[in-house]
């Protein structure tokens, strides 16, 4: 499952969608909007820009590479765009496998790859009104 969507996601629903025979372990990572920036300033909201068609293609490749590399049974990537306030969900990665080590390793790998290479950009909107694109 690969999704780029404005609305929130349900971890239970994604787990349910992944469940297949032979699975013994599902590891999920949920990224949440933080109320404080890396340099300690209060954050009012984050906003995502995304090159949707390329990001979907990047997600599909990351998902397939991970399934192959770690021997997963299935995997999911769900990323929100638009605006989120502190405490709101941003991204969900799920890795499902027979045994747990592979699922942990794959979930971390997928999130690292998304951060490294998917065309998504996060803007922090600080409490004082300053706006800045992260990572640029």
């Amino acid at each position: 499952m690969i999704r780029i969507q404005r609305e929130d996601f349900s971890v239970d629903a994604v787990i349910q969608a992944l469940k297949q025979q032979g699975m013994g372990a599902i590891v999920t990572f949920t990224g949440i909007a933080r109320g404080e920036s890396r340099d300690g300033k209060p954050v009012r909201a984050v906003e995502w820009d995304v090159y949707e068609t390329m990001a979907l293609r990047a997600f599909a490749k990351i998902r397939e590479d991970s399934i192959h590399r770690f021997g997963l049974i299935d995997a999911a990537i769900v990323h929100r765009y638009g605006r989120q306030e502190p405490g709101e969900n941003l991204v969900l990665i799920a890795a499902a496998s027979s045994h747990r080590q592979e699922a942990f390793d794959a979930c971390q790998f997928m999130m690292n790859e998304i951060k490294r290479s998917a065309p998504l950009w996060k803007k922090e909107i600080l409490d004082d009104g300053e706006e800045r694109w992260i990572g640029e």
Partner: protein
Amino acid sequence: MNIRFLFFASIREAAKTRELELDIPGGNVNDALSHLETRIPELRRHLDRVQIAVNEEYSDRNRSLREGDTVALIPPVSGGKS
């Protein structure tokens, strides 16, 4: 030939638009970017730091363009830890 440019994040804000179509005489990505920065001078200082994707594939700037190609200007992704 018609080339469609796409802008994201800080580049979109500098361009004040998400996309732009230009009719240019042909050439490669570099030539197209020269026409683009003439049209939107605010982009000039950003052009060195973007990656280029042509038709949703990362591309170098010597790639020849064809009628109807889409050229995306991709600023560095957010990276870091979440």
